């Protein structure tokens, strides 16, 4: 035991210096990453504690803990005219848009895997090429108008129904499935549509889930179609309502004075509180489904990376 220690003494001193360096490295690394975590999380945390603070107290400054506690801002915000409508519109576009794009992309991808489809390659390319060009703002705007999609809910869900990238992902997945399953269904007399709904679609669930999550986040976050083409207040999305609030603080004070004149308790509520609360309401769904997002998004980006 002792002879071995003596023999490796020089080695041990080198090891000690390595240990020391290692420690310094780890300390720096952990420190920088911790700072980054705080920089990322603090704005969300700040909005959260502000939104549950007592509005008047919060004006004096909120840093680490809520100043007082009140859910008044949530109660008032939800009661603001148009908020519930906007939430409903955002929710419907997320659900319907996701369902539509999942159905279209997956069924089209299935058709593309069939050898019997005439001009298969050309049809596939015709759809894929759309990923690489964009007509530009005004042509897009005029075309949507010409289709009568202005002030129309379909504007939110129709243009994004078929997405080239999703088609690639699903097609690649379907091609990996064993052919025998489909053949046995065919022998049983099932048509293409039946085979798709009862065999292919259920088997493709892993990739479908990934794409559904992609599409849902996209839908929830999209607002420019609303911003440029929809004026109807009944069709406003939650994102745009927030944007308008941020943009025109006068708008907000109008709303609150409106409420004031109706004798509500808005006297105790500041515009900041309402802004924070709406931001919370728009962010919350994303944070709630976050674990799902992490799992499927990472899978998705990896599949994309393999393809690209």
């Amino acid at each position: 035991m002792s002879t071995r220690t003596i023999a490796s003494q020089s080695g041990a001193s080198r090891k000690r210096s390595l240990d020391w360096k290692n420690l310094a490295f780890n300390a720096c690394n952990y420190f920088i990453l911790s700072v980054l975590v705080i920089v990322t999380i603090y704005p969300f945390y700040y909005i959260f504690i502000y939104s549950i603070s007592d509005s008047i107290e919060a004006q004096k400054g909120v840093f680490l803990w809520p100043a007082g506690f009140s859910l008044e801002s949530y109660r008032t915000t939800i009661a603001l005219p148009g908020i519930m409508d906007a939430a409903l519109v955002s929710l419907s576009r997320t659900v319907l848009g996701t369902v539509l794009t999942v159905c279209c992309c997956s069924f089209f991808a299935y058709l593309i895997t069939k050898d019997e489809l005439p001009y298969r390659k050309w049809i596939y390319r015709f759809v894929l090429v759309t990923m690489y060009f964009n007509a530009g703002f005004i042509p897009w705007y005029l075309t949507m108008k010409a289709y009568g999609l202005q002030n129309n809910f379909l504007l939110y869900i129709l243009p994004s129904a078929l997405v080239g990238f999703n088609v690639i992902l699903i097609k690649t997945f379907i091609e990996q499935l064993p052919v025998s399953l489909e053949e046995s269904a065919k022998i049983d007399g099932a048509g293409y549509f039946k085979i798709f709904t009862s065999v292919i679609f259920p088997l493709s669930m892993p990739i479908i889930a990934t794409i559904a999550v992609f599409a849902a986040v996209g839908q929830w976050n999209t607002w420019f179609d609303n911003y440029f083409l929809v004026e109807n207040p009944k069709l406003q999305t939650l994102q745009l309502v927030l944007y308008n609030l941020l943009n025109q603080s006068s708008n907000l004070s109008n709303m609150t004075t409106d409420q004031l004149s109706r004798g509500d308790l808005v006297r105790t509520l500041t515009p900041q509180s309402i802004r924070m609360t709406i931001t919370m309401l728009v962010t919350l769904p994303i944070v709630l489904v976050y674990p799902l997002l992490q799992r499927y998004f990472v899978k998705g980006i990896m599949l994309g990376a393999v393809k690209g």
Partner: protein
Amino acid sequence: MEFTEPATKRKAARKAARKSKLYRKDGIKLLLMALPFVILAFAFSYVPLFGWIYAFFDYRPGIPLSNTEFIGLENFRTMFSDPRMGPVLINTLALSLLSIATAPIPMLFAIMVSEVKSEWFKRLVQTTSTLPHYISWIIVFSLAFSMFSTEGAVNSILFKLGLSDTPVNVLGNYDRVWTVQTLLLLWKSVGWSAIIYLAAIVSIDSEQYDAARVDGAGRLRTIWHITVPSIMPTFIVLLLLSVSNLLSAGFEQYLVFSNVMIADRIEVLDLYVYRLGLVTGDYSYSTAVGIFKSVISIILLFTVNFLSKKFRGQGIV
């Protein structure tokens, strides 16, 4: 034998014919099923391209195109004498180049995360750093506003600590627009961009690290000689892709963050196209500028793809 052979042949031929007939019938059925999707792609991606003809007419909203004057390439010529075009291009290129210059940061971040030994801390860093990717620019704006506006958190903290008595207006700072916007973009995207590097790092053979450690290499050395070279190809592909997007500096970000104080220096090409079109109502000129941008972007994409094929032996598209 002599009889059976032609018989089987005939049988096979008949079978093939029946099959091809069935094949054709199935083919038509499939074609009909695929048709709605072809129409969908045509209607929403190809039809807008016909709108490019507006660039060649002196079109004003409200007057049908048939009554407007054909002016050929006039709009494209105007572009070169447009005094606003220069600053807009500079803004676009500056913001794009700054985001390209910060491209190594996600890579560095991924390396740092991969060097973390504690599993829970690693997961904490990854989970939090990706969160901003999933929220819209409007939310980012709202968060930034609460942090950096004159009554925001940062200013009040600085004031409380006695570090400053005049509030700093970060979002309205004319001289620092590009820096602020680049940092915001980095804040939103760093965790997400790091994912692809992290995957590349995970796939590195761990024996390489063991061998290096036996040879007495420290952490920094193994990073420099093993990790960095292994993820370099990924970095190059992403870099090339961002070069092809040089003129497409993020529209939503700059639209949301634009305000009177900084409008001049944040107006990128996409924003200018929008302002010309919907705010000024000059549809034709706006379309022309849009075409200019699309054509250059496509040329860049092909060039980059060609160079990549030539030097890496592999395209990026």
